[in-house]
C-alpha cells in the first residue's frame, strides 16, 4: 500500500501535495479515524476553555482524554487482524502495545478525575459555588 511522502526529505509538504493532487478514496478513508479523533478532541478542548462550570470542565477534559485513547487504539489496529489473544487459529493480530498503554492511561485518568472532583467539592465548600467567574469575583473581593 502506498504511503507517499513518508520517506521524502520534506515529508509535510510532499504528503500534502500528494494528497491534494490525487485525492484518491483510499487516502481519505485511511485518515478518517484520525479526523474523528480530532473533532472529539476539539469538542473536549472547547468545553474546557469556554465553560466556567468546574464539573463541566472535568467532563470536557475526559472527552479530550478519550479522544487520545481512540487515536492510540486506531494506530494499533490492522485491517483483517483480530484481538491479540493467541488462539492458534488467527494469523494476524492487532498491535497489543497501544492497548497496554491505554489500559494504564484509563486508570490514571480516572485517578486524576477523582482528584479533580474532590478539589471541586472542596472549592464548593470554601466558596459556595462551582462557577469560575463567581470564584474569581469572590477572591478579588477578599483581596481588596
Amino acid at each position, binding site marked *: 500500500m502506498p504511503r507517499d511522502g513518508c520517506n521524502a526529505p520534506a515529508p509535510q509538504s510532499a504528503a500534502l501535495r500528494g494528497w491534494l493532487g490525487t485525492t484518491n478514496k483510499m487516502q481519505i478513508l485511511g485518515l478518517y479515524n484520525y479526523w474523528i479523533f480530532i473533532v472529539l478532541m476539539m*469538542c473536549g478542548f472547547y468545553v474546557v476553555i469556554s465553560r466556567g462550570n468546574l464539573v463541566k470542565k472535568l467532563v470536557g477534559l475526559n472527552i479530550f482524554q478519550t479522544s487520545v485513547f481512540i487515536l492510540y487504539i*486506531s494506530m494499533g489496529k490492522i485491517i483483517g487482524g483480530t*484481538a491479540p489473544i493467541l488462539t492458534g487459529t488467527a494469523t494476524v493480530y492487532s498491535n497489543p502495545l497501544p492497548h497496554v498503554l491505554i489500559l494504564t492511561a484509563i486508570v490514571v485518568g480516572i485517578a486524576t478525575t477523582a482528584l479533580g472532583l474532590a478539589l471541586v467539592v472542596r472549592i464548593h465548600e470554601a466558596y459556595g459555588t462551582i462557577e469560575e467567574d463567581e470564584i474569581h469575583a469572590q477572591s478579588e473581593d477578599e483581596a481588596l
Partner: protein
Amino acid sequence: MVTALAVIRLRDLFAVVMLFGIYSLLSASLFVVLDAVDVAFTEASVGAGVATVFMLGTLALTTSREKTPAAHKPLLPLLAVLVTGAALIYGTFDIPHYGDPGNPIHQHVAPRYLEDSAEEIGIPNVVSSVLASYRGYDTLGEVTVVFTAAIGVLLLIGDARRRRSEDRSRPDHEEDA
C-alpha cells in the same frame, strides 16, 4: 460524537454526566470494533461506571445546575479550537494510514511480543502478559499514581468533612450537607 456535542450545549449537569456515561460506553464499543477488547472492558467499567458515579457524587455534594454565563464570549475559544483543529488535521496528512500492517508502529517490539510471549510468559492474552510482565514497571507506576490520588482525595474531602462538623456555628455553607 453526537453525545459529545450535546455535552457542550446542555446546562443541566445531571444530564451532562449521564451523557458522558453513554459516551464512554459508545467509545468502549468502538474499542471492541478496533480489536482492543481489554481496553473496552476497562473503559466500560471505569469510564462509564466509576467515573459516572464519582461525578454524580460530586453533583450531590455541590449543585447540579450550571449557571448561564453572562459575560462569556464564545468567539475566542471557538477561534482557538478551530486553529488547533486545523493544525492537527494538517498534521494527519503525514500519519501512516489506518489499518496498514506495514506501519512503523507494527515493526518494532510488537511482533516479538506476539511471537514469543506464549513461550516466555505462558498466557494466551498478549495484552495481559505485556501489562504484567514486559511492562510491569509501568503498572507499578500506575498503582503509585492511583495511590497518590487516593491519598489526595482523602486529604481533601476527609479533612473538609471534619472541619465542617467543627464550625457548625457558621451558617453560610450549610446547604450542601
